[in-house]
């Protein structure tokens, strides 16, 4: 006669519990008091599993946030090469994209076309926001002879704009060092505004181009609003690095900073004085007659007359 169903389940549960106890005893080293190392290994495993799960969750959340940010802008998408420039072409080209000592690269990059105002004219440029990462070597010497080498991962937030003109001579406007801020080791080109000189170190081989770029208005704006940011121009790329002051809390991770850094970038380009663009040979695009409301649209071709009954 077959045993009752509930009895079979109970017997199965007991067997399962027995097996689990054996397994736990095997892992922890039995019940003779040497179970502690095994428990530690178990806890470490659990911690690793939790960390992995959290990291995966964060990655997924960041990807969702980047996708949501991209959907806000026409023609934007996730990018591997910001503005079509490979990481190998960016590395060491700007202060914001250092080589480091081991790995470097671009991550969380988004970009696409954006309208920026250059010399009073709205121009469509390729713009990208991304995180530049690199690894710095750190050597720790212990009491013995052995030196332990580790690598620190560092990141820099970057917004980049591909300009319609080429800056043949690079210009960099970077935050001044602590000593420079108090006037002890001030290097670079000095300008009229003392508050600007205290905050920024300006380098550029073409001094006339630098003063053309940094007119009184831009000096004031940078000193007031872009205090700890770096601005660099090389060829046709304008790079704005550093953390913005605002965050979009509806997004997650680094994507929270992208709306603000993008806004800062377009505002910066808008405030670059027209003489700078003229010095670089920027030509205003020819006006589009279709966009000018004063110009009447060209006459449409008249529709063909309806066929007369005798033509049929």
């Amino acid at each position: 006669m077959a045993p009752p169903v509930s009895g079979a389940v109970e017997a199965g549960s007991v067997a399962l519990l027995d097996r689990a106890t054996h397994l736990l005893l095997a892992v922890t080293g039995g019940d003779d008091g040497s179970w502690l190392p095994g428990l530690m290994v178990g806890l470490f495993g659990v911690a690793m599993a939790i960390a992995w799960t959290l990291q995966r969750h964060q990655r997924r959340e960041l990807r969702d946030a980047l996708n949501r940010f991209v959907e806000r802008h026409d023609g934007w998408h996730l990018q591997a090469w910001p503005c079509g420039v490979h990481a190998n072409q960016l590395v060491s080209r700007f202060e914001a994209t250092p080589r480091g000592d081991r790995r470097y690269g671009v991550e969380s990059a988004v970009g696409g076309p954006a309208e920026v105002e250059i010399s009073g004219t709205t121009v469509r440029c390729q713009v990208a926001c991304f995180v530049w990462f690199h690894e710095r070597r750190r050597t720790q010497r212990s009491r013995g002879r052995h030196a332990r080498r580790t690598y620190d991962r560092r990141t820099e937030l970057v917004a980049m704009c591909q300009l319609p003109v080429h800056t043949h001579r690079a210009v960099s406007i970077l935050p001044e060092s602590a000593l420079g801020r108090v006037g002890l080791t001030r290097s670079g080109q000095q300008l009229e505004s003392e508050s600007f000189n205290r905050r920024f170190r300006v380098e550029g081989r073409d001094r006339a181009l630098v003063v053309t770029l940094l007119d009184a208005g831009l000096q004031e704006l940078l000193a007031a609003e872009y205090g700890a940011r770096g601005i660099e121009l090389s060829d046709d790329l304008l790079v704005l690095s550093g953390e913005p002051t605002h965050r979009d809390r509806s997004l997650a991770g680094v994507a929270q900073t992208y709306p603000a850094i993008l806004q800062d970038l377009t505002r910066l380009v808008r405030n670059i004085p027209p003489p700078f663009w003229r010095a670089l040979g920027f030509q205003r695009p020819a006006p589009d007659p279709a966009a000018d409301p004063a110009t009447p649209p060209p006459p449409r071709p008249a529709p063909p007359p309806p066929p007369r009954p005798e033509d049929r």
Partner: protein
Amino acid sequence: MEYLLAIVLPVLLGLVGVVLSYNRFVAQLASIDATWANIEGELQRRHDLVPNLVETVQGYARHEQRVLEQVTEARAQAIAAVPSTVPIEQQARAEDALTQGLTSLLAVPESYPELKSDAVFRDLQRQLVETEDRIAAARRLYNLEVASYERRRRSVPSNVVAGVIGFEARRMFEIRDPAAEHSPHVPR
């Protein structure tokens, strides 16, 4: 020996300091002269552009004789103020007068659409604005150099060197920004 060192060493260090300070003053003066030469070059270029502009405008707007004469006269005064014997302030005022004249001249095409669309006139206007951009940049560089020189000339201890050697004060070159007045209007 130790006493001798205690006397000689500070004197030597002081002498080295004086020489370094003197050399830096000389370098600053050379830089001021170089930036001034840049300004003069660009001003010269602006003076050279004026006759062509006047001629082009005259071809379309013969009735604007008063404006044309005003510009020609202002140019002559600006050229007369170029030599280094003329005080810098006088030169600045002469350039301001020319800027004012050119502003009137560049307003003429508003009443003459054919002149406004003339390719030669547009090219000359573009060249004028670019030259004036360069004048503005050169003027700012010059003034920055002068400000740095003056700061050193007045601060301790370099003021002692400047006083003993006799480094004279330099004046800034302050003029109206012509590029801001003559750049083409941007339609919004």
